[in-house]
C-alpha cells in the first residue's frame, strides 16, 4: 500500500470507529442540541429587545455566534474522552498500532466535526423557524460546513493537548470549565467586537473563535458582512490547527506511559 493511502486508511480507521459509536447512541447528539436551542430561544429573544446593540436584527447577529459556541462547547470536552479511553485501556490499543500518532490525532479531530455538523443542522432549523435571514446558497452552506469542520478539529485538538498535560479526569473537568468562558466571552459570538473595551478587543484578536464567528456571520446570513477578510477568517484557524495537530501528535503518547 502506498504511504499516502496507508496514512488515510489509518485516519479513516479512527474516524469510522467514532462515527460508528455515535450511530449506536444517537441520543447523545440530541441531548447536546438542547443547549444551543435555549440560547437562541431564551437569551436571543430577550436580548433582541435591546435596541442599538447591533445594526439590524440581534437574532441574525446571534445565530452564527450560537453555532460557533455550541461547536466550541462540544469540542472542548473532547480531551475528556481521550482520558476516559486511556483509563479504560482503549487508547493502549491505538498506541501500540503502527498508525503514526498524527493519523490518530487527525482521525479523532475529524470525528469531532461529526458532532459539530449535527449541531449546525439543529441550529439552522431552529434559526429558520425564528425568522433568521439564513442564506441557503450552496457556496455559503459549503463555507459554513468547512468552517464548522475546522473549528471542531481545532478546539478538540486543543482539548486533547490539555488532556495530555493534566492527565486525569478530575483536573480536566476543572480546566475545561475554566477555559470555555474566556474563549467565549473574549470573542464576537454574542456582542460586536466594537463594544469591547480596548484590552478585551486586543485579546479577541488572538482568539480563533473570533475569526470563526466572523466568517460564519458572512456566510450564514443573507445580510451578513464580515469584519475581517474571509481569507483571514479561514487562514488564521487553519494555521493554528496545523500547529496544534503537530503538538498533539507529540504529546498524545504521554497519556499511556
Amino acid at each position, binding site marked *: 500500500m502506498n504511504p499516502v493511502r496507508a496514512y488515510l*486508511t489509518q485516519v479513516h*480507521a479512527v474516524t469510522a470507529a467514532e462515527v*460508528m459509536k455515535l450511530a449506536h447512541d444517537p441520543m447523545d447528539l440530541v441531548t447536546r442540541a438542547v443547549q444551543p436551542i435555549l440560547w437562541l430561544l431564551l437569551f436571543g429573544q430577550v436580548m433582541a429587545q435591546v435596541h442599538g446593540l447591533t445594526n439590524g436584527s440581534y437574532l441574525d447577529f446571534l445565530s452564527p455566534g450560537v453555532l460557533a459556541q455550541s461547536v466550541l462547547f462540544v469540542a472542548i470536552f473532547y480531551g475528556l474522552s481521550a482520558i476516559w479511553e486511556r483509563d479504560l*485501556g482503549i487508547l*493502549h*490499543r491505538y498506541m501500540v498500532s*503502527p498508525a*503514526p500518532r498524527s493519523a490518530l490525532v487527525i482521525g479523532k479531530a475529524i470525528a469531532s466535526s461529526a458532532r459539530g455538523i449535527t449541531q449546525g443542522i439543529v441550529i439552522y432549523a431552529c434559526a429558520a423557524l425564528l425568522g433568521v435571514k439564513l442564506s441557503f446558497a450552496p457556496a455559503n452552506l459549503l463555507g459554513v460546513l468547512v468552517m464548522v469542520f475546522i473549528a471542531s478539529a481545532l478546539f478538540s485538538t486543543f482539548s486533547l493537548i490539555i488532556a495530555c498535560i493534566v492527565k486525569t479526569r478530575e483536573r480536566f473537568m476543572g480546566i475545561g470549565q475554566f477555559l470555555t468562558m474566556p474563549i467565549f466571552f473574549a470573542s464576537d459570538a454574542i456582542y460586536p467586537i466594537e463594544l469591547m473595551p480596548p484590552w478585551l478587543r486586543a485579546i479577541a484578536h488572538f482568539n480563533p473563535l473570533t475569526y470563526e464567528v466572523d466568517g460564519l456571520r458572512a456566510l450564514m446570513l443573507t445580510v451578513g458582512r464580515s469584519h475581517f477578510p474571509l481569507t483571514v477568517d479561514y487562514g488564521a484557524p487553519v494555521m493554528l490547527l496545523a500547529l496544534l495537530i503537530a503538538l498533539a501528535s507529540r504529546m498524545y503518547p504521554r497519556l499511556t506511559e
Partner: protein
Amino acid sequence: MSKTGPVVETHALGRRFGSVVAVADLSITIAPGETFALIGPNGAGKSSLMKMLTTLLPPTAGDARVAGYDIRGEPQQVRRHIGYVPQLPSADTELTGYENMLLSARLYLLPARERRSRIAEALTLMELSDARDRAVGTYSGGMARRLEIAQSTLHRPAVLFLDEPTVGLDPNGRLAVWSHVRRLRRETGAAIVFSTHYMEEAEDLADRVALISRGRLAAVGTVAELKNAHGAASLDALFTKLTGAALSPTAVRL
C-alpha cells in the same frame, strides 16, 4: 525481521519514575515461537517491562530489540510486528466485536479485500463468530479477552504480549482464554510473552519463566530447571526462596 534471531532481546533495560525504580538492569532473550512467562507479585515491574517492549513507555536505561527492531530507534517497525493485549480491557465496549476487529484491520493496514475473510477467520479461531454483531459491552470477561487477542493477532505478529490476561476472570473464563491461546500458538507459531501471578498458568503453559522481584530479574529458565537448581518443590516456594517475598499470599488453585 530475521527469522532466526531472538524475538525479544533486552540489555540492562531499566525504567525509573522519579526516584522510584520500576525496572532495573534487566537482560533477557526470548526465541521465536517460545512461550515465555514473566512472574512476580503486583508492582514487581512486569507491566512496566511490557510497556517498554511494546513501545508505550520509553526506557530510562539500557536497550532492547523486539522482532529484530530497536524499541527506541524503530518503534514503528516494532509495532508492526507485535501484538499487545494490555491488562486493562482494550476493546471498545460501545462497538460490536466485528467493528472492533475492523478498527484493528484498518490500523494494521490489512489489504481491503482480505479484511472480511481474515476477521472471520480470527473470530472463528476465538469462537466469537456468533457474537460478532453484539456490542462488546454485553460480552463476558473471557469473551472480551478473546476478542482482544483476536484484534491483537489479526496482522500475524511475530510476538504476542499478554499482560495479566486472566486477571479478573472466573475459572471457566481463564481456561477458555488459555485453550484459545494454545490453539493460536499452534496455528500461527507466534512467540507469546505473558505476565501472571498465577503459578499454575506459568507451569502449564510457559517454555521458560522469568521471576521478577522489585524490578529485577531473580531467575530465568524452565520451571523444571529452576526447581532442580534451587531444590524447591513449587514455583511459589522457589520465588520465596530467591526473593524472600511471597509471590501470591492468597494463591488460588485452578
